[in-house]
């Protein structure tokens, strides 16, 4: 499907509103031509009475003409109101639909997509691009249609008044249109140059602020200011180059309108004097020219707006037409009572060609606690991510209770896994909302249990609104440890068959961590648990330890088995013990 088809589908959904709106534009464009006719009749009548003194027209009739003009204006006004409301209003509905569809698409797209995409870029498409598309399908569409209709209908009326003058106007209008359109093109080009320099300035400031430590360290503030001043001057130069052109646009339009009066005055004046044309017709003709000048002069802007809208629609379509690589199977397998047995069968996985896991085979019976250890970049996080089907393996299979994850509905897989990620992500919402992320409408008991297990309960007393306190950007900032414990509570309340702790307690202090682990033991006893951890006590108490090195399992066994092997694990364990000794705050009391 192309971006055009996509846009068409949105529009077709509201085809009746668009059609009625268009009809209203057409009606308004015709009705607007009527009052000048009344004006003509009135003026001609007035003049005739004036000339021969006979009362061709009475005040009462004049009043009626006035009422008639008002009546037609009411009709025109109503049509304009209707067309704006229908077409622009509908474009708002289309905007709403596209935005919802974008959000829904974001929910489906896989982690691979998010690794490639940049948040800023995605946001730009949801905001700037969406706005341009909305303008295209609303105001721009009306303007375009109105301009075309007015010109066609207007010329018809012009010719009906006076053929010769009409033809002169025919010759004159294209000239105005071409002058203005070509000036707009230059303005557009100059504006792009301004925008480019704007980008340069932004980058400069961005780099300056990001690199402020370096700049200060080398006392280069003045050099930076000098560099910025140069870019700033260039910005001024380009802006002025643009201003020289854009400053001409508005006067040009005014003159374009005024010049048409000039034409009528010259050619029409002679005709009226010679009696080939009535004074009323003269005024009527002049009024039409003024009416037509506006849509004519806006043609250039309308064209730009169309171009931008089309380009933006393409960018939006890119997202909407992306298919997620991780999705529900066509015919999902049913799995009701999940035990939590996990199997990796010859699993290999690479990020953009960089191998992260190679030939991983692992059989974890339900209820086992597995500790995963290894250096940074060894593949620990990748391993647990595959477990929740955040990614699919390139080769091999990951199975839950003996069924390939890819055969199960995504919601079942993710419902079975309680995940506490390495980097805590909480939403700026209340703490309850964040914890209830794991389970909709949790009971008091469930919340209490989650709070206790994660040792978050004690912290609540310090918060102004307790568990209802809003956290994050719109609320208070929690400490790193508190965030991690909230994330743990979120996973615990889910009551999952498989619990994953990916280095999830790194910011929690030793004492609290021990307390948490103690409480987790009861909880974990009934569940399969994967723990990526460094702390010796955590690792040693696991049923099984897996040592990863550069994406491969190099050791696999219990603490006692591995320690006697004198291999990777025993070296790791000894060093870690030493590190814990060093970190013990023995001198803590001194300072405070």
């Amino acid at each position, binding site marked *: 499907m192309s971006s055009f088809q996509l846009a068409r589908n949105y529009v077709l959904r509201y085809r009746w509103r668009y059609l009625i709106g268009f009809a209203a534009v057409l009606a308004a464009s015709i009705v607007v031509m009527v009052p000048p006719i009344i004006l003509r009749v009135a003026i001609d009548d007035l003049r005739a009475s004036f000339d021969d003194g006979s009362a061709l027209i009475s005040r009462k009739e004049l009043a009626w003409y006035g009422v008639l003009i008002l009546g037609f204006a009411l009709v025109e006004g109503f049509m304009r109101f209707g067309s704006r409301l229908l077409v622009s209003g509908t474009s708002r509905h289309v905007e709403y639909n596209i935005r919802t569809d974008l959000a829904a698409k974001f929910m489906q797209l896989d982690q691979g997509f998010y690794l490639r995409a940049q948040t800023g870029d995605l946001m730009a498409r949801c905001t*700037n691009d969406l706005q341009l598309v909305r303008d295209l399908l609303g105001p721009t569409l009306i303007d375009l249609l109105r301009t075309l209709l007015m010109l066609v209908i207007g010329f018809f009326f012009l010719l009906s008044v006076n053929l010769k003058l009409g033809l002169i106007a025919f010759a004159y209008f294209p000239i105005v249109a071409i002058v203005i359109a070509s000036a707009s093109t230059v303005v557009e080009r100059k504006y792009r140059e301004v925008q480019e320099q704007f980008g340069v300035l932004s980058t400069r400031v961005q*780099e300056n602020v990001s690199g402020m430590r370096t700049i200060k360290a080398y006392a280069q503030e003045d050099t930076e200011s000098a560099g*910025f001043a140069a870019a700033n001057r260039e910005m001024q130069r380009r802006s002025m180059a643009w201003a020289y052109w854009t400053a001409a646009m508005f006067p040009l339009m005014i003159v374009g309108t005024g010049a048409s009066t000039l034409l009528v005055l010259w050619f029409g004046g002679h005709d009226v004097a*010679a009696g080939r044309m009535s*004074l009323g017709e003269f005024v009527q003709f002049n009024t039409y020219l003024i009416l037509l000048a506006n849509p004519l002069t806006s043609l250039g802007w309308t064209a730009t707006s169309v171009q931008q809208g089309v380009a933006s629609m393409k960018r939006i379509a890119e997202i909407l037409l992306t298919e997620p690589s991780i999705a529900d199977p066509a015919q999902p397998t049913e799995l009701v009572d999940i035990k939590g047995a996990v199997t990796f069968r010859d699993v290999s996985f690479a990020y953009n060609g960089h191998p992260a896991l190679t030939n991983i085979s692992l059989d974890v019976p339900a209820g086992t606690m597995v500790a995963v250890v290894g250096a940074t970049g060894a593949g620990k996080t990748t391993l647990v991510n595959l477990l929740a089907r955040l990614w699919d393996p390139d080769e091999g299979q990951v199975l839950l209770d003996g069924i390939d994850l890819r055969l199960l509905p995504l919601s079942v897989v993710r419902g079975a896994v309680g995940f506490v990620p390495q980097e805590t*992500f909480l939403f700026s919402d209340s703490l309850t909302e964040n914890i209830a992320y794991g389970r909709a409408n949790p009971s008091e008991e469930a919340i209490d249990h989650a709070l206790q297990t994660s040792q978050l309960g004690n912290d609540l007393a310090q918060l102004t609104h307790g568990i209802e306190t809003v956290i994050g950007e719109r609320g208070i900032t929690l400490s790193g440890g508190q965030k991690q414990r909230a994330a743990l509570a979120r996973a615990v309340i889910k009551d999952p068959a498989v619990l994953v702790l990916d280095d999830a307690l790194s910011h929690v202090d030793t004492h609290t961590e021990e307390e948490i682990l103690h409480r987790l033991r009861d909880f974990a006893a009934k569940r399969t648990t994967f723990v990526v951890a460094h702390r010796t006590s955590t690792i040693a108490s696991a049923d099984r330890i897996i040592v990863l090195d550069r994406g491969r399992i190099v050791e696999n066994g219990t603490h006692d088995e591995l320690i006697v092997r004198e291999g990777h694990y025993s070296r790791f364990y000894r060093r870690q013990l030493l590190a814990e000794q060093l970190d013990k705050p023995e001198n803590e009391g001194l300072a405070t």
Partner: protein
Amino acid sequence: MIDDPDIDLDNQVSGKLYDPHVVGRLGGYLRPYWPQVLFGAVLLIILAGLEVVGPLILREAIDGQIANRETDRLSVLVALYFSTLVGMFTIRYVQSVMMNYVGQRVMTDLRMETFAHLQKMSIAFFDRNPVGRLVTRLTNDVSTLEQLISQGVVQILANLLTVMAVMVAMLVLDWKLALVMYAFLPPLVYAVRFFAFTQRDGYREQRAWLSRINADLNENITGMAVVQLFNREKENLRKFDRRNRGLLGANLMVLRWYAIFEPTVVIFGALTTGVILWYGGGRVLDETLTIGTLVAFTQYMQRFYWPIRDLSDRYTTLQSATASAERIFQVLDEDAEVLDPESPRKLGHIAGRIEFDHVWFAYDDENWVLRDVSFDIAPGERVAIVGSTGAGKSTLMNLLNRLYDIQRGEIRVDGVPIPELAQRDLRRHVGIVLQDAFLFSDSVSENIRLRDPSISLAQVRAAAELVGADRFIARLDNGYDELLAERGANLSTGEKQLIALARVAAFNPEIVLVMDEATASIDPETEAALQASIRRVTEGRTSIIIAHRLNTIAFADRILVMQHGHVVESGSHSELLGRGGVYAKLFELQYKGQDLAPTGS
């Protein structure tokens, strides 16, 4: 734009249309350009006068010529009309260019002032303010302001002048008909005001929904893994939809008012035309009014309505510009925390003695990072600092550079307490190699000399050769002129550090601080080059090295061991190893064997 983390900050500004303080301050920026502003104002008055000439000519043409079937003076009138047009075009154009010029100059000044102000701010300010926010101040907010000057104020003035000129012209032509026309003014002004106010509320609601939706979307995109892991797609979409509907409602409300506004003006126009026709036409029948005057009045009517209608559009421009001005002024009003003394002492060439004398420091006045730290470093001495993460090693560097001020104690360079020196004078003598070498999107040589013209290209080359960066630079397509991508994305970590070392060599300070902590994935060749160059750069200079590599520690004259904000041990490698204390454990942990280094904890 939307990447702007300002949603909360936006709510802090008052958003008042007319804030005398803000407007007065903005006026100050116009002062240097008062001749241009004055000239522009004069042009506006002339323009308003010319605006009323057209219909007068038309009237004369009708009454004096064509109505009497005469054409003898028609060419004169047409020529007059033509010159009026040319005059209007010229004056409008000159005036517009002039105001654009003033607007651009003011913006250039304001941008420069803000940028220079940022250069003066302390690092703590940058810790508090996200990069995106500051960039927005200098770019988008300044641009919004520009519109205020080149379009907002001027256009409003021009509109008012035009309305006044038209009113005068009508009065002169026929005072009775003019008074009838005036009668329509109050209801029209009232209607415009009404629409402006309802629109303002609508816009505010619109903006509130939109910023909420964008924050929502941004949050969902960033946290998508969590959303998916917790099966929250449907629920979050439902929430999103609720807000999206809220926005739709606000949008439609604004649109409804807008859609009513346009026809209202049309109908007002028709109403006046009707009245002119009825009342004026009657007067024509009485022969107290000419047809030409009647036609002139219908034309004036257009010039009368247009400016009033335009005023409502300007309202929004003004409002967002005032908000932008307020935000910029907020930044300009922040004072630097680390200040230079009134009469700083000058440092010439220094020997390079460093003294830390009972130094206490906390970033937040609460959690002490350094507790009573004292040590001396002799000129030319190379000292390695070791300790686990969070022991306070990098803080030492920040303090010696005076990026932050200490709470208690004193830091001295060559016996001079550093607050008695100008910050930049101090920093010229202290070179620093940061762990995460920051590179600018500029050429390699400019990255080495940081665009400082006082360092010659020959010095840049010599510095690169000294640290052995010349070899990889030679391999680049354009050598020293190779443009680096943003943050040096096209270089490896090791290469970036070599450039940072070359920087120090080029600036040639007496004191060198090197951050040499664990870095991932450096190939052995670069690794060796790095170590050699650290050694060369620190040669003969007082140096503090936050050491990660055993080799680096080995060539240090002395080792300071830090733990929990204290200096706990000090001595040579063998002395400390023999003592069997913290250093011995650290050595065992960090420097023996590398195959399975533990992380974090």
